């Protein structure tokens, strides 16, 4: 029972990396299908299409970042891994925003990227507009990332 704190904290880190990573894999996969379709007909659009395909990949990076910061704070990567149950649960809660929002926002951003790749295929000169549309979804992943970082940083100073 005395090790439950570290167990919950690590579970939180795993959740952040796992969920955001799944979301990004689905999002990049969907936009990759669309990218391959357009490039079959129009190989000259490679650089523009690649940027649109990679947009849903950022959530996976955010999840990885939060998992890394969390593991470093709880002492898994070196230091003292002894955590109270309360602190462990707090770390777990701090990882939830980027895990859940990362999953859904990456999938949604993937869909928006697919639509934008279609737009680019019809109007290659409208790359700027085609990119802004899926980037809008990124806002919510960044907000979740911010909350997760602030919470993880704050938990360390609490006397629990």
């Amino acid at each position, binding site marked *: 029972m005395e090790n439950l704190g570290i167990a919950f904290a690590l579970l939180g880190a795993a959740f952040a990396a796992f969920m955001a990573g799944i979301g990004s894999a689905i999002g990049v996969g*969907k936009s990759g*299908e*669309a*990218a*391959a*379709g*357009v490039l*079959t*007909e*129009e190989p000259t659009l490679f650089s523009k299409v690649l940027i649109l395909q990679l947009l849903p990949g950022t959530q996976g990076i955010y999840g990885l970042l939060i998992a890394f910061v969390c593991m470093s704070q709880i002492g898994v990567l070196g230091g003292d891994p002894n955590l109270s149950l309360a602190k462990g649960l707090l770390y777990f809660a701090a990882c939830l925003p980027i895990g859940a929002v990362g999953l859904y926002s990456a999938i949604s951003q993937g*869909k928006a990227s*697919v*639509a934008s*790749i*279609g737009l680019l*295929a*019809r109007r290659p000169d409208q790359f700027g507009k085609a990119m802004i549309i899926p980037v809008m979804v990124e806002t919510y992943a960044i907000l979740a990332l911010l909350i997760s970082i602030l919470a993880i940083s704050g938990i360390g100073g609490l006397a629990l």
Partner: protein
Amino acid sequence: MAKQEYIYGVARVRAKEMSLLNNQAVEQLIGAKEEDVFSLLADRGWERKETAEELLSAEREKMWKFIEEIVDDLSVFDVFLYKNDFHNLKAAIKMICGGVKRDRVFIDNGPKGRISPEKILQYCETLNFSSLPERMRTAAKKAYTVYLETSDSQLSDMLIDKAALEAILKAGEASSNQVIQDYAELLCATSNIKTALRCAALQKSLSLIREVLAPCKTLDVESLARGAASSVDAVYQYLEKTMYGQAADIARESFSAFERWCDDFLTEKIRFQKYQSFSIGPIAAYILAKENELKTVRVILLCKKNQIPEEKIRERVRAMYV
């Protein structure tokens, strides 16, 4: 089960749509000389061919090869492919009962049907109708018997056409896609209207008209049949009460104007597919848009060959999808 997505295929269609003829390109073709039409089309990626038929056939074949590349299972497009099977069935029955030569009567290139023409011919020759797909069996037997007993090839064709429409409508209803459903319903309704007008002009009996009209959702075929048995005007009067009221006014002008209205109506219905990215709809819309383009090029080439003035050609060309 998760709904199947066609992301790769739709993306290829998006890029491919750019090579479809738009209204300006059609205007350019109308203004060109007959021989220049071939060159202008070649500049847009069409093959260089000697005759209009060769050109259109090659382009249709190319389109279906492209569709085969992007869609694993072509059965989703049964609504487009069934008509080729039934066309081949009509040809086979004419060959057997009417002694028509085999040369170029079958559709066996490009948009293939779901069963090979050779098999259709073989089953009809051996009177082995039960080996035909279920949707064709009854109509094949009936059309064959009618042709042999009455030598009325037109009635035989009409019976097969009705079976084709019923099969297309059933395939449309089985599809979850709105474009395919709309296409099947519209094709069935407009074919019924054309048949009713033809029967009215030829003063066919009510029982025969009932026999050749295929039931559909947007028309009451009984009322249409009664109208057709009465007069052409009675058909128009019935149509005015339906969603095809505008078509009745146009059909009064000319039959070709009515056919153009049917194509334009369908093009208008599929236009919103330009904004879809995941479903089969944009691919179905591309097939319809390409068929519409081929019809337009055929009209232009035919008119050019017969030295019809540009103004008259403009009246006959269809609205373009892109």
